[in-house]
């Protein structure tokens, strides 16, 4: 009994780690642009597809495929950032909703047109289990947890010490003051967008060996799971996102294990409804941003 309980927690943490890496990108993009990126899950999908493609065609080893998937996604995001996201600066919210939903449709359907709509098999990564006493967990899941910690430590260092990271915080706090001190908001928005989508892609390829299947529509559910996380964490709040993602990951793992897999995806939506009713600014202080 205890073993199952601990396994569920561990699996929940690794699912939470995947969500955290995707969601932190979305929350940072919201921070600088005040817009929800409804195409965020599509970059998760693009990264996974990029990785799958180079593994299944030229047989690249998994670590190299991770890099290719992330870099290709960031390159695509750069183009979209230049032509679409930068134009959203100072625009009303409706514009960004329609634009990012449109991008989601275009990316999803382009991938389906090129690679077909069927499921692909992702056969790479480290899926051998390791055992701690009776508790077994796939190596890949441990890798995901370790890399999630690395990502958040890295982001914390970035926004605290680097010039661009500080500018990202500055843009999220006061755009007018940025103009006054000479911060180029357009460049900061583009950098944040490319970084955030790169993280989504990274998360996608990291979790692909565990999820096994790759398909064009896989990003949608990720976007909609990311929403309750960034609301729970407080929009724009990096640390809050990590905690919220862990809560959702563990809650899903428990629901799937004790009530049935079919209820798992409803956890996020129930959470979103409860949060919006109870604490629309998130679990933490409304002022805690990155």
């Amino acid at each position, binding site marked *: 009994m205890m073993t199952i309980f601990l396994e569920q927690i561990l699996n929940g943490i690794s699912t939470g780690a995947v969500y955290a890496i995707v969601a932190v990108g979305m929350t940072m993009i919201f921070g600088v642009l005040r817009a929800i990126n409804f195409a965020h899950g599509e970059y998760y999908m693009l990264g996974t597809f990029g990785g799958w493609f180079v593994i299944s065609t030229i047989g690249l080893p998994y670590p190299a495929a991770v890099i290719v998937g992330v870099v290709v996604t960031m390159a695509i995001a750069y183009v979209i950032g230049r032509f679409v996201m930068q134009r959203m600066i100072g625009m009303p919210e409706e514009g960004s909703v329609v634009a990012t939903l449109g991008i989601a449709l275009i990316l999803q359907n382009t991938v389906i047109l090129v690679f077909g709509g069927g499921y692909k098999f992702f056969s790479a990564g480290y899926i051998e289990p390791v055992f701690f006493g009776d508790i077994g967990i796939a190596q890949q899941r441990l890798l995901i947890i370790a890399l999630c910690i690395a990502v958040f430590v890295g982001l914390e260092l970035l926004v605290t010490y680097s*010039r661009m990271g*500080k*500018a990202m*915080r*500055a843009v999220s*706090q*006061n755009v*007018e*003051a940025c*103009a*006054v*001190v*000479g*911060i*180029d908001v357009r460049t900061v928005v583009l950098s944040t967008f490319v970084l955030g989508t790169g993280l989504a892609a990274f998360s996608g390829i990291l979790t692909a060996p565990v999820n096994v299947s790759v398909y064009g529509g896989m990003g949608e559910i990720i976007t909609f799971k990311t929403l309750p996380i960034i609301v729970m964490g407080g929009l724009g709040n990096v640390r809050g996102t990590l905690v919220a993602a862990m809560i959702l990951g563990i809650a899903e793992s428990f629901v799937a294990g004790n009530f049935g897999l079919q209820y798992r995806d409803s956890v996020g939506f129930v959470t979103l409804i409860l949060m919006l009713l109870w604490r629309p600014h998130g679990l933490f202080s409304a*002022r805690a*941003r990155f």
Partner: protein
Amino acid sequence: MVADNTLSIRDLRAGYASLDILNGVTLDIPQGQFVALMGPNGAGKSTLLKTIFGMTQHKGGNIGWNGGDIAGKTSRHVLGQGISYVPQGRCNFPLMTVQENLEMAAYTIRDAGVKSDRDYVYDLFPALKTRRSTLAGNMSGGEQQLLEVAMAVLQRPKLLLVDEPSVGLSPAAIGVVFKELIRLQKEGLSILLVEQNTRKAMEVADRAVILRLGEVIWDGRPADISHDELGDLFLTGRMRTEHETSRHKETLSV
């Protein structure tokens, strides 16, 4: 080209989209002068500062500075030319510490002097030094206004544009802010100040410029204009003639 640190505005017209606010402003600000820009609401005072700083739509005329024309240029360009702007209302990064705000202020400057500049600003504003680890948003309005002036100083400007620094401040805080502005002027900065508190503005400035409906209607030494005359200018755009003044007195005596 000879660097000329006189700001010379010629027939400047600017506004927002289809709205014209400045209708041909002509004004010279020699180096080191402290100019108070006054006028009734809607006269275009703030718009003039914003236009100099490249934040409105430029519609005509020019702004000579440093041997070039900065009219219609971006804020980043103007900032790079040695003109800093302290807008009205709170304009800092509320979730960053005072120290971080000062770091952000020097964002465009990348040389070794930034740190010694910061020490210099801390000497200039000791109140900020004691608050260096405090989040800017947690400070009082007066302290935040000082921080914003300090941020502008860190950009090593030759001309400082300051928009209504006294709004929302206690009389004591206003005193501190103005004292600092005077000190900056003594160090050679030119200052263009927009201020509703005319009494205070006239007290500190070398020169008063009165704007009405987007045009300069009076320009001179504060000593040369009384508060009554200032009021007339604000309301009617001209001073009363002697005839009107005597009639006014008659009316009052009746």
